[in-house]
């Protein structure tokens, strides 16, 4: 029915599906982004509807309760936009939360109860409740996506990685080595797209997948643009881009997949950190690769000695048959703007 409403506006079927999907993600996204009381009315209506129908499905004998549908605003024809399967996915995702997590989330998002009053009820602090709500939303998004995909995580590492991505917690992402997992796990790589696409991409970080020669140029351009914003001199920008070129080539030549992640640093002083990781064969002897005569050397680890010369800090972690991670940092020269 709703699909028909959407489709009547968008002639073709896939576009309609995209719209429905996008609407749902927008609702879930808004749950993580918007302050209490500022949720778009649309999102509230949609969420209420989800809860109402869930209630109806789960508790059929409590007939009067399903009049929660009355909560729907009369002037919101799109309230039905969530399709049956999406509703089921949200319901399934909610099942993965503990009772306390679910109750707190619903009290906050649906009934507008603020974190302070929730904290009073729970014998906690407003800050702790807010943090818990963020974790709950992060988990909800992950569980929703797993439910939509009708899949279980491929390994024990999947959930922690996806939740770290969903919460946008970069320290946690590093702790669970999320970047490497995304290279290795096809499921998480796919699920990370909507998680990263919902406005959590930090504007002080860029991520460039490296698969082919052309990506090396994109990586050079990407790092140059970001580092320019940190106030690096044109000379340093070229030096950094050259180092990125060297290590990206290593990925293209020897690994099936890899990426360059560039991050601006503030502490202890302005700088740029570049992480290059791949799922290549790994370098059996990193020391050797770093000391070999690099102008003629064309084997595994090619480009490492050159890149090390150009950067201030340089570290290689490599595991045979698993891949290599190069982390390198350039600090902005004192006296630069």
């Amino acid at each position: 029915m709703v699909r028909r409403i959407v489709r009547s506006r968008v002639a073709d079927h896939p576009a309609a599906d995209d719209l429905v999907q996008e609407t749902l993600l927008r609702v879930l996204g808004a749950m993580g982004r918007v302050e209490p009381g500022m949720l778009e009315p649309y999102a509230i209506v949609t969420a209420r509807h989800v809860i109402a129908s869930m209630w109806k499905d789960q508790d059929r004998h409590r007939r009067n309760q399903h009049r929660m549908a009355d909560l729907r605003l009369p002037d919101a024809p799109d309230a039905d936009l969530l399709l049956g399967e999406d509703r089921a996915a949200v319901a399934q995702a909610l099942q993965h939360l503990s009772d306390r997590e679910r109750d707190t989330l619903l009290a906050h998002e649906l009934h507008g109860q603020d974190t302070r009053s929730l904290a009073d009820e729970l014998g906690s602090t407003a800050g702790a409740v807010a943090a818990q709500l963020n974790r709950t939303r992060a988990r909800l998004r992950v569980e929703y996506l797993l439910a939509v995909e009708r899949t279980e995580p491929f390994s024990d590492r999947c959930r922690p990685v996806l939740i770290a991505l969903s919460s946008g917690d970069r320290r946690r992402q590093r702790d669970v080595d999320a970047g490497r997992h995304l290279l290795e796990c096809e499921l998480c790589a796919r699920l990370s797209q909507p998680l990263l696409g919902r406005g959590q991409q930090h504007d002080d970080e860029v991520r460039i997948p490296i698969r082919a020669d052309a990506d090396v140029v994109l990586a050079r351009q990407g790092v140059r643009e970001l580092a320019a914003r940190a106030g690096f001199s044109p000379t340093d920008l070229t030096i950094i881009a050259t180092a990125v070129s060297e290590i990206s080539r290593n990925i293209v030549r020897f690994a099936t997949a890899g990426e360059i992640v560039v991050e601006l640093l503030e502490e202890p002083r302005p700088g740029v950190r570049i992480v290059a990781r791949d799922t290549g064969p790994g370098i059996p002897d990193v020391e050797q690769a770093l000391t070999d005569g690099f102008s003629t050397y064309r084997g595994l680890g090619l480009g490492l000695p050159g890149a090390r010369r150009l950067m201030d800090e340089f570290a290689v972690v490599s595991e045979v048959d698993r891949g290599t991670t190069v982390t390198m940092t350039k600090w902005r020269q004192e006296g630069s703007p």
Partner: protein
Amino acid sequence: MNTGPALVSILRQGSYLIASIHTALDDSQLMRLQKDLVDQIGRHRSRGVIIDVAALDVLDSFGSRTLRDIAEMARLRGALTVIVGIQPDVAFAMVSLGMGTGSVHAALDLEEGLEYLDRQVRARQPGSSVVVPR
């Protein structure tokens, strides 16, 4: 022909070839340039080659090595190569990296590159395939 703007143009001027790189190139594009230049040197019996790299964003180990290889292949086919337009920042990074264009001659710009070729090629026997020692 390629669709889209040309990445590199190779123009013939008398017995010289002038290759102008218009944008950042990746490795396969650099290899393509190498092949095209060596082909054209043979076809036109060129005596000199100028490669204008001013638009290159970086000259890393691969880029530097490719320029050296081009110069060496050109030399074996009787042509001299000059690299022009290496930007100061690029030059600095090349030195920091520990790379250079080695024995390949570099000149500031196209004009100086042409002057260099004129001087060197005039010193050769016309029509001779003997390579002038550096």
